[in-house]
């Protein structure tokens, strides 16, 4: 079976979804023009790094995870996994973080999206696992650019209600010492960017951007509450993801803020109409993990058969819960607090399980599907403790072994069938 045949398209109901997708398509063209044709300085960065610095300095960024999903969407993940294997990088190689490296190592402009990435000014990653410093160093070496690592220190202060406290009390939740460290690292990054690009960092500009980001995330928070707390759920994951993720890549930009408002308004209108994702919503599902970028149709597949709707995926509720920062007198400190727990709260106990259980209760979740990426410790960690916590809270959980971007072993029908059986056994039979 070809890779293309495995994934299925998702169905969407909001008009702003198409607008977001179109914006991103145009943005990609613009980014490609700036980076490839105009040769502007740009950076390759991990998703959990301070993009705001680059936005404030008007330096284009290519986000590694976005680039991986772009590669996967171009049906190139299988090819690039083979490139890594041929180069000797076999074993537990995180595909989500390494497809971009593979694309560079392949060095085949005819195949690569955009003909491959040119030499960036810098590559930036936060060292949240053992492999990322290696992937980024290899990538930097291959591109002839410096790698600027950001530490991911330990986090001993554990506020289990971080999602309630961290908008205001971020200094306490993320701890002064960890924020101090990240601010110093960001100072160094800014110095490097100023030196290499000739562009100047302006703290007032960052503060204004952070304020606009707050506006955007507040709107996303309203939309999130409407989407995840309303019965029937007005829009499913297929509409949620592009409308939150695409603006999130551009957070604080006028388009992103306006789009968040548009999304909130459309969702609000559907709630007012009582419009639901399916004819009759019977089962409310939670999806834990990154998006299944190679098979977005998976999320719609259980709607007709079971009236089962994925009402919750982390991207939308996470926007307001994690990104919003009040008290912007020292915008770099506020930004540091946003970044320095980004990964931890999504993948480590107690932050992950406490948030997921709280959300499941608030959203009336009937069952949960947890993605278990087989080659990515970072993404898979915390899932079993979260599963136990959810089940203890009365939410049955199904674990699905799959990768976010590598479709090699994915079989759409088999996976849908497995989840369907789980819903029959654990949800429908309980109600009968």
């Amino acid at each position, binding site marked *: 079976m070809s890779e293309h045949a495995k994934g299925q398209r998702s169905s969407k109901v909001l008009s702003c979804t198409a607008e977001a997708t179109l914006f991103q398509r145009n943005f990609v063209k613009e980014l490609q023009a700036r980076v490839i044709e105009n040769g502007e300085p740009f950076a390759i960065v991990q998703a959990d790094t301070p993009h705001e610095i680059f936005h404030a300095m008007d330096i284009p960024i290519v986000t590694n995870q976005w680039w991986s999903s772009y590669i996967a969407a171009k049906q190139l993940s299988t090819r690039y996994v083979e490139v890594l294997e041929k180069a000797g990088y076999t074993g537990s190689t*995180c595909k989500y973080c390494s497809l971009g490296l593979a694309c560079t190592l392949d060095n085949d402009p005819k195949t690569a999206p955009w003909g491959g990435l040119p030499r960036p000014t810098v590559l930036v990653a936060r060292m949240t696992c053992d*492999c990322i410093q290696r992937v980024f160093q290899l990538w930097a070496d291959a591109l002839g650019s410096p790698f600027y690592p950001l530490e991911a*220190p330990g986090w001993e202060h554990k506020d289990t209600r971080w999602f309630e406290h961290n908008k205001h009390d971020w200094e306490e939740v993320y701890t002064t010492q960890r924020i101090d460290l990240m601010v110093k690292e960001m100072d*160094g990054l800014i110095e490097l960017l100023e030196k290499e690009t000739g562009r100047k960092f302006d703290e007032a500009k960052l503060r204004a951007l952070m304020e606009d980001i707050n506006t955007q995330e507040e709107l996303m928070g309203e939309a999130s509450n409407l989407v995840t707390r309303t019965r029937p759920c007005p829009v499913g994951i297929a509409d949620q993801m592009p409308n939150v993720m695409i603006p999130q890549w551009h957070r604080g930009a006028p388009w992103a803020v306006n789009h968040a408002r548009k999304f909130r308004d459309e969702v609000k209108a559907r709630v007012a109409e009582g419009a639901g994702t399916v004819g009759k919503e019977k089962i409310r599902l939670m999806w834990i993990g990154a998006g299944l970028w190679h098979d977005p149709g998976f999320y719609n597949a259980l709607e007709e058969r079971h009236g089962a709707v994925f009402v919750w995926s982390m991207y939308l509720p996470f926007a307001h819960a994690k990104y919003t920062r009040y008290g912007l007198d020292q915008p770099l400190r506020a930004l540091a607090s946003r970044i320095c727990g980004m990964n931890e709260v999504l993948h480590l106990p*107690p932050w992950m399980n406490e948030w997921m259980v709280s959300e499941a209760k608030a959203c009336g979740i009937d069952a949960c599907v947890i993605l278990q990426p087989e080659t990515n410790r970072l993404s898979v960690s915390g899932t079993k403790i979260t599963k136990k916590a959810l089940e203890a809270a009365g939410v049955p959980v199904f674990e699905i072994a799959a990768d976010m971007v590598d479709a090699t072993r994915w079989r759409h029908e088999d996976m849908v069938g497995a989840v369907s059986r789980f819903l029959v056994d654990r949800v429908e039979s309980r109600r009968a």
Partner: protein
Amino acid sequence: MAPASASFGTVDAVRRDAEALAQRAAASGQKVCGWLGVGSPVELIDAAGLHPMELSAGDAHATPLADEYMEDLFDPVVRGVFERLLRGEFSYLSAIVLPRSGDSVHRFYYYLCELKRAGIANLPEPILFDCLQAQGAPSNNYTRDRLEEFRAKLATVSGHIAGEAELAAVMARASQRSEALQEIARHHRSGTLAAEEALATYAAARMLPHDEFLARASAVLADNAESRSRNAPRIVIAGSPHDDAGLHRTIAEAGGEVVGDFHAAGELSIGASLGRNIDALLDFYRTRWTPRSFGDPAERLLTFAREANADAVVFSFFPVEEALTWDYPAQAAALAANGIATLRLPDQARPYDPAAAAQLGAFIAKLAPRRK
């Protein structure tokens, strides 16, 4: 102290001795602090008046209790230790130190904290050693502060605040252990000490009390002064750590001779700071080899293999290994460019699975003529 023996035997024998001694220490009122991970600052545990012991996965090959909470991609040694903790086999520990210097160990810290917080298991106090290894002042200064906090936490467990003189004394003891191990490694390379004995001695330095280790290590060195080299192909083992000598025995049976262990349970576990104060300790732990240290892994292995006068390097990785496998292609290329053969075995389970014996035999058979 147990009578000095001229052999540590096996890693498992060392483990059993060490655990018996630790239990005895706990029964006599001394607090025992387990640790796991090559970046654990044993000197500070020692200085706090705690009985330090590296935790071993022992016979925990099936891990049903740990599997309930820990995903498949965790290091099998960490998983085995977790299993034994949940079985209650470490109930005599007062604390467990986990450094940030490896992803599995670092995440394990959060898991233990959560199980303890939720009242799921009766566990010792998990203490994180938050050592950062990137170059530069921010990481260095951050770690300096965490080092002091770490000392204070240990003092809370032991009830003893170590002074600078005590710290200097335990650092001197760490240097003594390191020097003894360097000597063991030299004997390992020169063929006067069997590979399995060397591996057990490295484990003993991490698990046994200081005096016990030094006495027995001296006896081992004294009893193994004559070369037993078989003029066989000289092999270095690299990759994931080995806490049993199954691969070493298979290589010997195939006609090879293991002369170096380039992994976290082998020579990479050796080392001590040069100075005798907290800043020297900081420098040592920030720069020592760990899965998260920086530096050129190819150059490091090449230097090691040359010092061992190796004919070949055999790479063996756990199926879940996600860091060291990224180092492998450059390491293999550097070795090949310098005339050192390499073999990467299929993913290796814990304990060692002899399924690759035939492959090893064929590889070593090809090496044999090079020694003639």
